[in-house]
């Protein structure tokens, strides 16, 4: 396997999983905010569905997206089956409940008195939401870390909707499966190490962001 091929595969992994995570954040955070502030009949059902969705098997998601995008499926006319776009959609569906669910949990851990005090100091509704985001930042980042970690390491969904096409939809996980099947263990191990290093680098970045928000005061110190 050539160096440029490895770079291309790695790059595609980052782009696909990164955009899926960002999209999930763009939809998941407002959804969690809505669920936090509004009470409506059936809210418990929605939250339960989201929590269940956090454990969605990627293969099932892949199957579901494949059925939709298949040439004869309802969205077949889009002709995006076996493209990176289809992979982003599948990973977005996997990441969305993780981000929405963990964000909601993070919101619920914020003492409601914070929001009341913010409003009592003159915050508008938008400013109150910003205070909520700021107070629950640690939990939000935990959600992003979990979601990105989940999608960059999954193989079932990208395999089904991407098809592992060389130079087009092949990502690190599908490439590892391919190389192992072909008996190229050394390539597979290299790719595995790259995946681990990539995961580590991105989590290092996110964790630094998270810890920057941590309080300087560390509480009681252990002797």
């Amino acid at each position, binding site marked *: 396997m050539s160096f440029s091929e490895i770079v291309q595969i790695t790059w595609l992994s980052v782009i696909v999983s990164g955009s899926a995570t960002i999209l999930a954040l763009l939809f998941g955070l407002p959804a969690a905010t809505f669920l936090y502030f509004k009470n409506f009949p059936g809210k418990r059902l929605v939250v339960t569905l989201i929590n269940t969705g956090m454990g969605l098997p990627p293969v099932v998601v892949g199957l579901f997206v494949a059925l939709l995008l298949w040439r004869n499926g309802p969205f077949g006319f889009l002709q995006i089956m076996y493209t990176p776009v289809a992979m982003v959609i599948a990973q977005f569906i996997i990441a969305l409940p993780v981000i929405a669910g963990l964000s909601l949990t993070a919101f619920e851990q914020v003492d409601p008195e914070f929001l009341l005090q913010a409003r*009592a100091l003159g915050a508008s509704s938008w400013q109150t939401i910003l205070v909520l985001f700021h107070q629950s930042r640690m939990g939000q980042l935990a959600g992003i870390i979990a979601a990105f970690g989940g999608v960059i390491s999954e193989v079932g969904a990208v395999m089904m909707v991407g098809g592992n096409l060389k130079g087009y939809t092949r990502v690190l996980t599908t490439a590892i499966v391919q190389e192992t099947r072909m008996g190229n263990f050394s390539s597979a191990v290299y790719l595995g190490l790259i995946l681990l290093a990539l995961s580590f680098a991105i989590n290092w970045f996110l964790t630094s962001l998270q810890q920057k928000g941590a309080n300087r005061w560390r509480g009681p110190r252990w002797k």
Partner: protein
Amino acid sequence: MEGPALEVKNLKYSINRRLIVEVDYFDLKKGECLVLFGPNGAGKSTFLRLISWLEPFDSREIYYRGKRVTEKEAPELRKKIVYLLQKPVFFRGTVRHNLLLGLKFRKLDRKEQERRLEKIATVFQIEPLLHRYPEELSGGERQRVHLARAFIIEPEFLFLDEPFNGLDVQYREQLLADFYRIRKFSGVTTILVTHVRQEAAYLADRLAVMVNGRIVQMGTPEEISACPETPEVSRLMGHEILVEGQVVSVENGLLEIEAHGQKIYAFGQQQTGGKVVLTFRPEEVILASEKPATSVRNWFLAEVKELRPLDLMVLVNLECGFRFRAFISRNSAEELKLQPGKRIWAGVKASALSPDQGRN
């Protein structure tokens, strides 16, 4: 004469169909410090949240400078009010960040923010704390910063929920004095909630007594102390129940009351034959070793039962057919050579006794 700055009429609030707060009328004059006083659980905090428009409600009419505030204008009014919760909650970041947050909500420009920060830090003596984190501060310092972040906004109305609660005595006195001075100087219209009588008496221009979700009496502390309208108010104001008796005659508002074979005089509106509960404040009872010739109408020969020292004062429990208490200085107690079993004259002016409607 200027009308009230804020008026509240027909306010009702209930949870699960249980009425929590019901206030027919409440007003707040410009620049005054009104103390909302009452026992724990009377609904004082809830009332503050309701008039700051922070809680949904059943019904209420709020008037700002005589004009009814509609639901649409509520955010406008809310910007004029700063309400501090009892528990000082701080947001992520330094003391400085916390102080500036209210100004950021109001989108003040940076220069003005800095100017106010500098001013408020000096006034509250918190310059050394600005770059520290709220978690590192002592309880007293936190409370000081908590107050400062309300004053920095320079609001028209300031609603404070027990801001001196849970502080140790020394720090509390200091902060109380500082608060009194700063508030007077800024002239901000204030409602302060407390259940501590001394605090209420010290800070209040006017007092509103709240019991069981209702405001039972409003007036200056002197007025309320002199004529509490219900036994509950009189107890809250530090009056103690002396005795229950029957009015035997009325002359120019002076009631002659018979109780346990003693004649007691007090001012009130009761009729002859009516039952009354007499209340008094131990601070207003005079002790003497011989019955002196004074204008004081009520003198009882009593036996000292117990002496209980409290700070610089002594609480003397007496018995003269009914229980009676006097709150006198330690020096007086020593000069009178008080000890259990000693007989002594206890006097209280007719005007210092409040007759409340007795249970008929």
